[in-house]
């Protein structure tokens, strides 16, 4: 009776894997059982502990102990055998799968895919972690946000606002839309540029349908000075030359265009041009850019060219005082003559008002067919067909630094560049049939 009692007590105990299993048979005295019992006491101290616990409940614990152990042992044995069988089945299955995968031709690709997936996930996680740990954004990550991407990321971020740090980050994100945290040394802002690029692309491809020739004349590396004719009330030709070189040149070079002083007196226009990459025209700035081996577009006609009458179109004004030649000599950079045809008809100036110019403190106040009659809308340039020709590079530095003081030489070189541009313009104009269709 005592045995029964003890076993019944044991069955629902937590040590047994399944309480639904049938109650164990009464213990047999066999050498195997004895052996297990010995081992059981030696190998499984927790079993021993449990046995002692049970001892507290059972009536005759010392007499029945060994039998209980034997029962448990047998059960464990059965269970172990089941598990072993299952494991072996699993292993063989896995082996088969592995064999299949190895024989599969695309397994390598799949592994790579998986690896990439894992990698990107890890990257994303580290980024997120970094983002939440620091209030500052990751510095080396290029923040190339278009406006809608920016909005979308805001919405995504907005959904995650639950603590102060991320709230601050969201506010920061809102503040920094359309601007980057770092600008180059002349204030060019890559994010802003990307923001306005669709508009300029429209003007480049659709509005003026710009065609460029001879872009390969621009050196692929090193400094260079692009000298061009100037027109069109607002410096669109600078922006378009920049775009043309970026789009057409095999090295996708960046051009910094120099802009007249007077632009920098104006609100909005000054900061927009600066952020798009325009630089105020002066010797120091051009020298600095050329020293950094950049391409610089200059317009030696200056304001005289920008405010040309319609009747004077394609007549090059005086090329300043040859400052660009001394610049080339000092920095030993080649001159690439550039002729922009089509830009001179975008805003046909029929008269200028000195009174209004004084009133608005501008060098000239243009009166065109549309401006100021249509208000600001009148500033929209006409959709003429443009051609930008890049000529062969000219070397104006052939006599080196010694000729820096030779004013006659400088003026002669300046005239040489001017006539090169003039010839390119005439060549293109002779082949043009229509102002608007080319």
């Amino acid at each position, binding site marked *: 009776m005592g045995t029964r009692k003890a076993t019944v007590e044991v069955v629902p105990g937590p040590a047994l894997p399944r309480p639904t299993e049938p109650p164990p048979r009464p213990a047999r005295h066999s050498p195997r059982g004895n052996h297990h019992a010995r081992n059981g006491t030696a190998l499984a101290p927790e079993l021993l502990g449990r046995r002692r616990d049970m001892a507290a409940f059972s009536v005759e614990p010392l007499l029945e102990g060994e039998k209980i152990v034997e029962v448990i042992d047998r059960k464990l044995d059965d269970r172990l055998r089941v598990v072993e069988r299952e494991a072996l089945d699993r292993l063989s299955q896995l082996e088969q799968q592995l064999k299949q995968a190895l024989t599969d031709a695309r397994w390598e690709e799949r592994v790579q895919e998986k690896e990439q997936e894992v990698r990107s996930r890890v990257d994303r996680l580290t980024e997120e972690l970094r983002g939440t740990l620091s209030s*500052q954004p990751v510095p080396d990550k290029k923040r190339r946000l278009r406006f809608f991407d920016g909005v979308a990321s805001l919405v995504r971020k907005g959904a995650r606002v639950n603590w102060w740090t991320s709230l*601050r980050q969201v*506010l*920061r994100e809102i*503040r*920094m839309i359309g*601007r980057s*945290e*770092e*600008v180059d*040394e*002349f*204030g060019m*802002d890559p994010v802003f540029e990307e923001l306005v690029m669709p508009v300029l692309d429209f003007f480049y491809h659709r509005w003026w349908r710009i065609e460029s020739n001879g872009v390969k004349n621009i050196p692929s590396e090193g400094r260079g000075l692009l000298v061009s004719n100037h027109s069109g009330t607002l410096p669109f030709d600078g922006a378009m030359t920049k775009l043309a070189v970026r789009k057409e040149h095999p090295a996708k070079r960046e051009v910094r265009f120099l802009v007249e*002083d007077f632009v*920098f*007196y*104006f*609100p*909005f*226009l*000054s*900061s927009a041009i*600066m*952020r798009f990459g325009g*630089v*105020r025209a*002066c*010797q*120091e*700035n051009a020298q*600095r850019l050329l020293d950094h081996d950049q391409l610089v577009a200059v317009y030696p006609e200056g304001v005289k060219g920008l405010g040309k009458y319609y009747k004077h179109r394609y007549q090059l004004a005086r090329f300043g005082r040859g400052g660009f030649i001394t610049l080339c000599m000092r920095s030993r950079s080649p001159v690439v003559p550039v002729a922009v045809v089509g830009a001179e008809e975008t805003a046909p100036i029929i008269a200028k008002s000195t009174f209004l110019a004084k009133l608005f403190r501008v060098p000239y106040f243009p009166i065109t067919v549309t401006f100021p009659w249509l208000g600001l809308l009148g500033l929209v340039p006409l959709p003429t067909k443009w051609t930008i020709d890049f000529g062969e590079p000219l070397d104006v530095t052939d006599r080196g630094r010694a000729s820096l003081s030779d004013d006659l030489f400088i003026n002669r070189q300046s005239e040489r560049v001017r006539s090169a541009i003039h010839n390119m313009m005439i060549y293109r104009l002779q082949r043009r049939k229509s102002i608007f269709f080319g």
Partner: protein
Amino acid sequence: MALTGVSGFIGSNLVQRLNADETVAKIVTIDVQTPPVASVKVRHHKVDLTEPLADATVAEILEEEKADTFVHLAFFSSPMRNTSHAHEMESVGTMYVLHACSAVPRIERLIVGSTTMAYGAHPKNPNYLSEEHPLRANPSYRFVQDKVDVEKQVERFARKNPAKCVTILRPCTILGPTRRYFITRYFGRLFIMTLLGYDPLMQFVHEDDAIDVFRRVVDKPSPGIFNIVGKGVLPISTVVRLLGRINVPVSHLVAYSFVNSLWISGMAEAPAPHLDYLRYLWVADGAKAEEKLGFVPKYSTRDTILAFAGVERLRRVHLVQ
């Protein structure tokens, strides 16, 4: 070693650093206020540079203390409403100091602190002003005009005394955790007034870098004028955003008279001509200091702004004074 203006920001920090340096035997301070360190090395003389005959007093002190280097830093860091007093203190005070320096042959070196504001903000400025560029500050801005006047006097002094090594340091706007003056008060507000449509590039130098370069020049004789600037530039609108402040653009057509009335009524930090510095470019080129002094700023403009923003945040919750 003699210093004026030791109650000022750079002066007080410089005295502390020199005091900690073993190689400096004696520091003579000339100021109306006592210096921030009490040490056997520091000998303080109370002199008011606006008094007549201050030059003779300073010369006597220099003779008596056997000083060989003179660091002149007795300038105001913020615009004063009492412009005539500021003029007496800066222009005339410098005149007295220069008199004393030329009268004492033992003085070999003169170091003067100025500011890049002296170049003046102008739409026709090149993007990077070199040290040779003329100083074209707005004539109606007395605060900067005094600095320009000081520089002109010092240059004249350098021409007259070719044997003496004269250094002028022109730091740009100094920001940092302990620096407090009108610029930090301007950037410390929640709403920052800027000019509508104008977004000039700004540059900043961290206070540690600025003090470091003064220390460097005191150690090593290096004649000439040097711009002390941090690397990189940022448009003012981005600066305001990085600081977490709110931009209030005001049209320049009304801003000048508006700020002027605020200044007269004591509610603005600076008079109206200061708006030029929020409107046009006045960025200086630090290449010469890097080449000649070996000064490479530890903080870029952006780092300086972020450091300042961090301290401002702590200051707002009263964790920092």
